[in-house]
């Protein structure tokens, strides 16, 4: 069934179709309509789930962790400062190997207080052991929630499904809402190997000496390394059943491109429009949209950009005192490769400043005018 829905509700429908059993959320700003619709679904029994209204985002994640360790499929959603408040609990979820799935609306961190998009909230959590999917359309948001549960439960690693504030969260698009029966066939019920139960009581997350802690972290990383192949496998399975492939990256006209724009989130689709325009003007541009940031798709990035003459990474985020974070990671993926084009790092669109096709035109003009980057960061659109 096709419906016109906003990005927030695409998350809600995804969580509903995945048959989430426990949803815990703090209902005040920076929360969005994601959990509002889910609470209505719980109230009118469209969704057979326990909705726990808590007093903070820290408690929301704590409740998800408790429910998940007891064997329930759990979902929550948050944004910016709310995600930051969850920080401690994010480690508990991944360290405890609990496949919680969370929607994060990319909103800029305050102060100054902002409800507009940039990626510093989720990228500040990149090292917490969560998988991160950056979506570019409402359809992709809904589909990814369902896939994320499957991948997370298989690997026992939690997932964040991330979308841009307003550009997706409050933008209405046509979304194909799959049949429940087909989703059930794709995503079987959550059956953890061990869980918290009075029948066989164990303690979870207790004191772990240096003799064992190291190995637990090794195992988490080893399982994270299995994720790229599993995401592609489950993505192909999804394509067979629903007609839409869900991969790690999306490349657009990269094969013969002289210059490749590396993007993420909705800027990725804006970049396609810019690429089309530039191609008409005789510039061979392409776009590589990185969808999955954790685990990082090293092989795909290397393979796709290696034949380009130049690469321009566009970050809607910044690691203060360093670079944009996608720029850092693309460069690290290319380090030591036989062939690697010069990589230019651009920062644009912080705090919800629009990124438009002309932004990309400017980025391409700058990149083509120089042999290699002359500045650590090239700022686009700063009033100075």
């Amino acid at each position, binding site marked *: 069934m096709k419906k016109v829905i906003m990005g927030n509700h695409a998350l809600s429908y995804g969580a509903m179709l995945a048959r989430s059993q426990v949803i815990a959320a703090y209902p005040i700003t920076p929360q969005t309509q994601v959990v509002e619709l889910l609470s209505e679904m719980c109230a009118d029994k469209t969704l057979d789930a326990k909705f726990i209204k808590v007093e903070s985002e820290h408690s929301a994640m704590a409740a998800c962790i408790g429910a998940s360790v007891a064997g329930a499929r759990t979902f929550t959603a948050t944004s910016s400062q709310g995600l930051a408040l969850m920080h401690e609990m994010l480690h508990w979820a991944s360290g405890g190997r609990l496949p919680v799935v969370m929607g994060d609306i990319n909103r800029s961190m305050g102060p100054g207080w902002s409800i507009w998009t940039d990626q510093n909230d989720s990228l500040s959590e990149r090292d917490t052991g969560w998988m991160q999917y950056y979506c570019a359309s409402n359809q992709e948001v809904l589909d990814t929630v369902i896939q994320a549960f499957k991948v997370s439960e298989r690997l026992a690693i939690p997932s964040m499904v991330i979308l841009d504030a307003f550009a997706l969260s409050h933008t209405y698009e046509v979304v194909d809402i799959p049949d429940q029966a087909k989703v059930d066939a794709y995503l079987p019920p959550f059956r953890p190997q*061990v869980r918290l139960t009075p029948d066989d009581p164990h303690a979870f*997350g207790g004191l772990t000496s240096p003799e064992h802690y190291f190995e*637990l972290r090794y195992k988490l990383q080893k399982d994270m390394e299995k994720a790229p192949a599993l995401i592609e496998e489950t993505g192909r399975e999804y394509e067979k059943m629903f007609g839409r492939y869900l991969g790690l990256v999306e490349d657009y006209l990269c094969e013969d491109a002289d210059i490749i724009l590396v993007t993420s989130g909705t800027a990725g689709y804006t970049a396609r429009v810019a690429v089309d325009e530039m191609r008409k003007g005789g510039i061979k541009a392409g776009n590589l949209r990185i969808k999955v940031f954790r685990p990082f798709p090293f092989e795909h990035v290397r393979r796709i950009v290696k034949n380009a003459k130049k690469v321009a990474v566009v970050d809607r985020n910044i690691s203060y005192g360093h670079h944009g974070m996608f720029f850092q990671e693309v460069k690290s993926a290319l380090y030591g490769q036989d062939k690697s084009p010069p990589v230019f790092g651009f920062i644009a669109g912080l705090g919800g400043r629009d990124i438009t096709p002309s932004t990309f035109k400017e980025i391409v003009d700058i990149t083509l005018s120089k042999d290699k980057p002359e500045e650590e960061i090239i700022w686009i659109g700063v009033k100075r």
Partner: protein
Amino acid sequence: MIRKKEAKKIVFQSEKEMPMMPMSLGSMLYNKTGAWRNIRPVVDLENCIQCGICWKFCPDMSIFIENEFPYVNYDYCKGCGICAEECPAKCIAMVEEEK
């Protein structure tokens, strides 16, 4: 009453033998954490109003209800005192443990 098993040191030769998540391998039926307690809750049942608030608030499920009155499971109670703090009838006293 379950007797305490003899404790054995568990040594893993490789990460492959270890569980994926940090968890106790032995059952908590044997690992009685009540030994951590310094002060113990003592319920004065004469003044108890059977509200069940102590049962609800106990973070370790160490209060059980029998014939509508609360009793403490001292095998697991760690003596946090939340029950005594929350009791509206003030009928739970925290008494120092003597070793």
